């Protein structure tokens, strides 16, 4: 703990505390976890960028079907490599104190596979595939499921889920906050 304490200046810790939803102790804890992912590289330069394979060694992400999307969304370079600040950002959004609207926004980004600001049928198909893991739903079932989802959520009938529609339905689903959370 002493090592990680000296890795940051007071100003940096203050900034991080102000700009994220974590307290100083939690930030240091996050740094410790980041450090264990690649001790050599982080020891030399704390602002080093860790590759996506390193990040996915984190136990919380290893079994998550959306880990690649998560890394891409939070990475500042867009290709999945994350610096410590990106990592901290990620943990802040997934923490308990982050408000619902922030989580909903990032959830929308994560589920938008083709990054066109809409969740289309293709995006949904990918999401469902990733959710069911090794077992795959049949074509017909998949199509039925996608249609049902659009029926529930798509208010303007354009077969695309815009952010407003997504937010509208997700905020009605009560388990969202409970499931969209990673505790370190």
């Amino acid at each position, binding site marked *: 703990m002493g090592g990680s304490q000296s890795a940051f200046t007071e100003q940096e810790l203050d900034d991080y505390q102000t700009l994220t939803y974590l307290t100083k102790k939690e930030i240091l804890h996050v740094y410790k976890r980041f450090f264990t992912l690649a001790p050599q590289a982080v020891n030399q330069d704390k602002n080093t960028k860790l590759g996506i394979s390193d990040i996915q060694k984190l136990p919380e992400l290893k079994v998550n079907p959306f880990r690649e999307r998560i890394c891409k969304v939070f990475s500042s370079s867009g290709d999945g490599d994350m610096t410590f600040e990106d990592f901290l950002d990620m943990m802040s959004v997934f923490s308990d104190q982050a408000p619902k609207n922030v989580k909903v926004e990032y959830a929308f980004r994560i589920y938008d596979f083709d990054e066109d600001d809409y969740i289309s049928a293709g995006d949904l198909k990918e999401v469902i595939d990733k959710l069911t893991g090794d077992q795959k739903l049949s074509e017909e079932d998949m199509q039925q499921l996608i249609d049902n989802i659009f029926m529930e959520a798509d208010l303007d*009938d354009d077969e695309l889920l815009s952010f407003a529609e997504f937010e509208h339905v997700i905020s009605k689903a009560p*388990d969202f906050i409970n499931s969209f959370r990673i505790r370190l």
Partner: protein
Amino acid sequence: MDPPCDNDGYAPASPRTEGDEEYEMVDRNNGPTSSGLRRRKTWSAQNETDRETARLLESLPSRQLESLATTLGKDTIHFKHRRMKSFHGGSGVDPSNEIADAMTNDPQFAEKTEDEIEEMLKGMTTTLSSKRVIMHKVSSRRKRGVGRFTRFKYNVAMNWQHFKYSVAEVMYSLELWKSHLKLIEGHFGTGVTSYFLFLKWLFLINIPVFLLTLGFVVLPQVLYRWLKQDPPGYIEPSENSTYVSFTGIELLTGQGWFENTELYYGFYTNRTINLIGNHNYEMKYAYLFTCGGYYLLCLIILATSILQSYRKYYIEGSGDINFYYISKVFNGWDYGITSVEAARLKHKSLFLELSEYLAGFKGKKEKTLSAKCQLFMIRLCTNIAVLGLIGASGYLIYYLSSIIRRIEIPYLIDVLAIPLCITGVHLILPILFHLLERLECYVKPKTELYIHMIRTMTLKGVTLIVLVNFWFTELSKDSTLCWETYVGEEIYRLVIVDFIFTLLVTFLFEFMRRIVANYCIKSLSVAEFNIGRNTMDLIYSQTLCWLGTFYCPLLSCIVLIKLVIIFYVKRVSVIQNCQPSMRPWRAARSHTIFLGFLFSFFLLTTVAVACGIIFVEPSDNCGPYKGQNQTYQVVTELIDSWKDDYTWLTYTIEFISSPGFIAAVVIILGMGTYYLRLVMIGHKQMVTLLEQQLTLEGKDKNFLLKLLQDVNKKNKDKKKTSRPLTATSYLSDDTVTSPGGRTFIRQVAEASSRTGL
């Protein structure tokens, strides 16, 4: 307003561009048909005409506002970046300058406090590095021209912020059992974790209760006995008072050595304690008011929790509208899972659920009338059977209690008979209920679970009511006995026996089952952790604690110790012996329901204890209230004694407790509730209306887009002058009222006129 396109089966008038699929407009009002698949319309931007359309689409205001639809406050919308792509990705452009400029140039900005700016920055969806840059730029630009008063406000805000942060830090390090909870969540997900969180919450509630009783009731008594060496108030000691030594059996029965200690009501004195100088400490008032105090505290905590939970999960979660598929798909994955095994099971369970539900959706056969009748008769019979069983168990308890006092039974059995009987009934009858529920053939497992919970809770409530009724009516008539102490002992025994049975059941059903499954019978599967049953046991033990603290003040301490032991035992057992469940557990809704049960039991115990205080005569030879007709008499005497000094106070209290005032309060509360309910119904209707309007607007937009494509195509085909009026002739009047629509139509006209020339 009549939308331009109102008919089903709208067929496009012009030849379709390549890439479009055949489509039909589905009338939203008729709802989907379960058979047949809807085909989709695609707006493919492959041709040039379509590219123009796409370009126009991008300039629609609604598309730009898409990423701004947050509820953080309309001010923040000004400061968010207005582009389609988010800045979080690798767009290569550093937006910090733009954003910082936008922030400082806005006139409203100067009035914002640091807090609000920080909240805004926290919620922005850019990278942390750019947020830092923005923050520094903004704060450096802000530093000019602050007066002394604003600087003072700023300092106060800063100090408050620092205070909040340090409190958060302390809470973080104090957080109880964090590593255990994280381990459980990693392996089992949020369902099982909710049980442990509930346990932790009950533990935290009991701490203030314990501290209050300790501080105001137990400690003065202990000091009094210690310093004054006064004989305790149970029985005036005769010459050969027997000194009962402590044997181990007292831990089980609560009698013997424990009877003359602070554990029970009977020990407390009714005298005025005079330890320090002239200050008098009236034990009578202290005992009663402490009891009232912690009940009030628990009421406030419970009421706020249940309201918060209800609002979060039911109202905002709109209990009526059930977005089943959305929640399954988007909330289906539990991000807290860390173990591979749990992840595999989760995948499998999601797959099974989705396939099951889709299969049910496809072929829902209607039950025949005779089948329905049969089901109804079966359910009627099972409900009568359940009521009969509960009634029988209640009578059994009553009979046993009255028998035990009359006939001779060996020592240990006569005190333990009732607790054993009650706990046995609570174990066996729910199994019978399960069997009956299997007969009832509920379609949804959720309904079955709720009905089972209601039945079990009714059973527990009935047994407790019978017992309490027996104590207050029969037992209090026995004048040789200090009945309050006896009641305290009974509750103590109930708590201890319940605790032992919990440990035994955990040991037998989880540990032994794992041993058997692994080594003996391979086909028997390892147990799953039964969240419902365990949580209901917790609620029952908490009810006993509330019921008994008046008669056994140290009971809250015993329950605290019990909760800690149960936490560790269950945690070890769940990790070692159980496997994650395949069935999903809706933690959010269930949490509200469990809180509801807890609250209703709390109200029951409050009523029971209040009846005991007001209506039942305290025993003559022990306790703080000996010699009075009612325990409540001390309060009335206190109020009367104020009549001379504080007349206005007496009058106020008399007025408040008069029936007229209370009736008026009740009526006003009822009217308020009714009014709010009407408002809520109005809002719901508004929501449906607005949703319908939205769908119609969407259809408008589709129609206009199609129109635009046709117009563009026509203008491309004819190389000569087009007739821009083709587009504008459709614009009869202000039929489209949305802001995006109006701008859009103007652009349609402009675009077509441009390409036409």
